[in-house]
């Protein structure tokens, strides 16, 4: 089989558009996932049995089903659910439903990271904050969470790299992310193999260098 990679250069602008979609999905997934994950982690750690069970069930549920199932399901179900809520037809694109799926799915994983981070803070911090007259919300917001987030930055970043790779699954709903744009541009000129290899190489370089940086950061953070 002869390989010819010359078709890639003219296709680069299209591929960059796909990459922008991939990065957008990733960033929104990270931000939403961490926000929801933090709330879930605080629920899991709260003294209320009900809240902690609810959050535990959420995490267990999302961790035992495939991401691809969540993406497919949300793609088909979000329009229905929105119609029930708003009572009228609200058109949502594949992009929105994918972002929602990533946020909710990743929240389960981020929750476990945040929980471990909070639990790694020494009890004295909590006691000292309370002794100063802070209430629970203040203690968490001003004392515990800032320290916990600092400690768990490497883990959060690692999970984000996994999310970066997982965004390629939006292929199933036809969203044109980096992988899909590479496949489309390759198919047009009959060079799908070359474009596939190129896409793989780009994913590899980005994930590999990102993990390398995270490892270095981890070394600097741990005493």
């Amino acid at each position, binding site marked *: 089989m002869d390989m010819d990679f010359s078709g890639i250069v003219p296709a680069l602008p299209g591929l960059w558009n796909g990459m922008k979609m991939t990065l957008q999905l990733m960033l929104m997934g990270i931000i939403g996932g961490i926000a929801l994950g933090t709330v879930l982690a605080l629920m899991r750690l709260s003294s209320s049995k009900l809240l902690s069970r609810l959050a535990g069930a959420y995490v267990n549920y999302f961790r035992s089903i495939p991401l691809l199932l969540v993406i*497919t*399901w949300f793609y088909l179900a979000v329009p*229905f659910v929105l119609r029930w809520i708003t009572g009228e037809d609200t058109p949502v694109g594949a992009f929105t439903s994918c972002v929602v799926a990533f946020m909710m799915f990743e929240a389960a994983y981020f929750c476990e990271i945040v929980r471990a981070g909070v639990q790694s803070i020494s009890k004295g911090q909590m006691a000292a904050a309370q002794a100063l007259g802070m209430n629970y919300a203040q203690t968490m917001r001003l004392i515990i969470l800032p320290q916990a987030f600092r400690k768990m930055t490497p883990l959060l970043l690692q999970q984000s790299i996994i999310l970066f790779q997982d965004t390629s699954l939006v292929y199933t709903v036809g969203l044109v992310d980096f992988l899909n744009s590479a496949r489309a541009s390759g198919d047009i000129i009959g060079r799908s193999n070359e474009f*596939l290899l190129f*896409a793989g190489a780009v*994913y590899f370089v980005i994930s590999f260098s990102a993990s390398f940086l995270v490892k270095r950061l981890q070394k600097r953070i741990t005493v």
Partner: protein
Amino acid sequence: MNYNWDWGVFFKSTGVGSETYLDWYITGLGWTILIAVAAWIIALLLGSVLGVMRTVPNRLVSGIATCYVELFRNVPLLVQLFIWYFLVPDLLPEGLQEWYKQDLNPTTSALISVVICLGLFTAARVCEQVRTGIQALPRGQEAAARAMGFSLPQIYNNVLLPQAYRIIIPPLTSEFLNVFKNSSVASLIGLMELLAQTKQTAEFSANLFEAFTLATLIYFTLNMGLMLLMRLVEKKVAVPGLISVGGK
């Protein structure tokens, strides 16, 4: 908004032959289990070899294993699947290529691709677990074996690996569960495993929520069942004297 809830949908005929929707799910589950178990066997064997290679005192050997792990961990699973399914058959020698593309039934060729892909992908993760397990053992174990005159293969076979495997059962379990979840990518190359059957049911019956709820339940039960089973195994084979055993 009218949506007809109908939980009895699974016992209805699909209109294809005399099958009910439930039959589709059972077939799909069979495929999912077949893919996952076959891939897991590859992953466990190859991952163990790679894990041992990473701990061997030889730069070249451990370097090869490290490269493997980095390569397979940093490329998305879906990209790897497409490479195995679309690209690798083109690289085969002529005769083999013809056999794979034309003589082989499309389901079989897709199955081979996805099993190899998932097996090699998971092997990189298993390798890291095996390495961690070996490195977690006290250094005295290896030294003692060496002092008794064991050769390097004997040290691994009789001393290090039997203990390492027993330590890493929990992380290996979660990798095993991941294989089941990851096997759902097979639906993207046309294999009718559980997720593909679910999508098909949703489309044929228009009972979207029921279809996906059942799929979720099946995945959930499969996960919980395997987790409980592995916990029993873990207790059975725990290494006496380690903290994780629970101070017995």
